[in-house]
């Protein structure tokens, strides 16, 4: 039973991180119908920024929790700036181009950012300080659910709730939903669609950066390539849940997290990705629009 619970919470943690990244994919897709392949790189840049900030602050002997918070804030701001700029450089000029063009541009941006970090930093794995503190009250259950996992799950949950409230009740949130449904009409009733798109990229990037900081300080090492696999997994989660749907992305991410965790625990860690992608194939066969996605009805 303990083993099961350990895997359960491990999967929940994994799923939470996937969810943070998957939200960026799904929100951007919902608004500009673009798969932002550079999104994983934004997550990686978030982790790197946090590492740099953390190293500097550790040198000055700042308290770990303060480091974690400061590093997260700087990472979020820095990654948002990257997300914003990537959109302006690589996607905005192609907004009215055929759909394949921004997709290629996104892949290009992804490769560019990876290599840029590779050259600017290093190709080696870098150790990341374990910034998440051990809580005393978690000690009795720490063998199945660690403090770090708790922090990740709770942070993710708070971020999701805030995001949902934001989209549901604020003006900008309404403008986002309107833009997702009908861009021309949104323009015509006075919504500055460019700003809404920028805001979407900024929010998506912030969440990814947060995910990057959390997972890096949980796992303890990063390199320039972590964005690629995390990006693919989060993208899978978004498709699994129905791309464009926000609750879908979270659900997809959790299912993916659990699938991987249980597959690793009960079968073999070699099969982790096999199970994850087999699940994706199955869902796409039986529910092509994803779990919560609406099948598109084409009007003729």
């Amino acid at each position: 039973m303990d083993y099961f619970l350990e895997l359960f919470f491990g999967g929940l943690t994994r799923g939470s991180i996937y969810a943070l990244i998957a939200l960026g994919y799904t929100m951007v897709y919902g608004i500009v119908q673009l798969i932002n392949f550079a999104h994983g790189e934004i997550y990686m840049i978030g982790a790197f920024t946090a590492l740099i900030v953390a190293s500097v602050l550790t040198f000055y002997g700042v308290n770990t929790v303060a480091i974690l918070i400061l590093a997260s804030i700087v990472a979020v701001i820095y990654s948002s700036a990257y997300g914003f700029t990537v959109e302006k450089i690589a996607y905005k000029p192609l907004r009215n181009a055929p759909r394949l063009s921004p997709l290629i541009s996104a892949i290009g941006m992804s490769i560019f950012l990876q290599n840029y970090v590779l050259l600017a930093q290093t190709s080696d794995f870098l150790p990341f300080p374990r910034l998440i503190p051990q809580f005393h009250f978690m000690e009795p259950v720490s063998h199945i659910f660690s403090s770090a996992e708790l922090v990740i799950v709770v942070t993710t949950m708070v971020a999701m709730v805030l995001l949902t409230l934001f989209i549901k009740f604020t003006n900008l949130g309404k403008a986002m939903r309107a833009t997702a449904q009908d861009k021309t009409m949104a323009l015509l009733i006075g919504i500055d669609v460019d700003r809404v798109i920028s805001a979407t990229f900024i929010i998506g990037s912030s969440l990814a950066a947060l995910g990057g900081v959390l997972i890096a300080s949980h796992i303890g090492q990063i390199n320039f390539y972590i964005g690629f696999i995390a990006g693919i997994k989060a993208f899978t989660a978004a498709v699994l849940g129905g791309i464009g749907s926000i609750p879908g992305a979270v659900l997809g991410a959790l299912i993916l997290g659990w699938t991987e965790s249980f597959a690793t625990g009960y079968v073999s860690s070699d099969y982790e990705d096999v199970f994850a992608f087999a699940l994706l194939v199955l869902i796409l066969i039986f529910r092509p629009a994803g779990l919560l996605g609406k099948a598109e009805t084409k009007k003729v």
Partner: protein
Amino acid sequence: MENVIQVNGLTMDFGGLRAVDSVDLYVKDKEIVALIGPNGAGKTTFFNCITGIYTPTKGDILVRSTKSQPVRINGFKPNRVTERGLARTFQNIRLFQNMTVLENAMIGKHCRLNAKILGALFRDKKTKAEELKAAQECWEILKKMGLENQCDELACNLPYGDQRKLEIARALATEPRLLLLDEPAAGMNPHETEELTHLIRKIRDEENIAILLIEHDMKLVMNLSERIYVMDHGQKIADGTPMDIRNNPEVIKAYLGEEIDA
């Protein structure tokens, strides 16, 4: 009385096709003007030009906002045009189907709100007060359109006639000086059309805005409009009072074809 909009020699080419050919038009303050013409005459293209969906090939579109001098809005993005006081509805309904009635109206208010992204995130007092005020104003508009009891209904669940009304309500929420209606009576039965006629007149009287409408329902056009423009093959072929238009041989020719001399 001042002109809310003044269009001079508006021309729109699509490749070799001239969809709108040097059309002049103006609408005075608080005036109801109709733009009619057979299918394919270029009426909707004309609307698309003045609302910024297309950038016209030639010509000037001058819009006068509340106090300022007329501003040339050629090449403005649609959202900037809306900020200048032009709002429109579409031939086919384009509501935000998955949002509630009130939310649809609130979206129209968006361009009149000042709240920036930080305000939206941190929900300070000013932002909250502003949103509350916007919601109240939207509710007033919905009440005027007779939709106040369906505020929380999803737009896609409204009956057809109410969806049309909601489109107009959403356009009104942007606080326009000129309302452009593209075939507002399309698909309505005679009873609904009559109701709409009253409603449009009421909007003009109570909101003090000018209205420019494209319509095929001649009864509505003749009843409602103070002046009429007629387009055919991209050109303006006539303008004048409903009486003038009714007896204009050019117009009769455009609609019914030429008389054959026996």
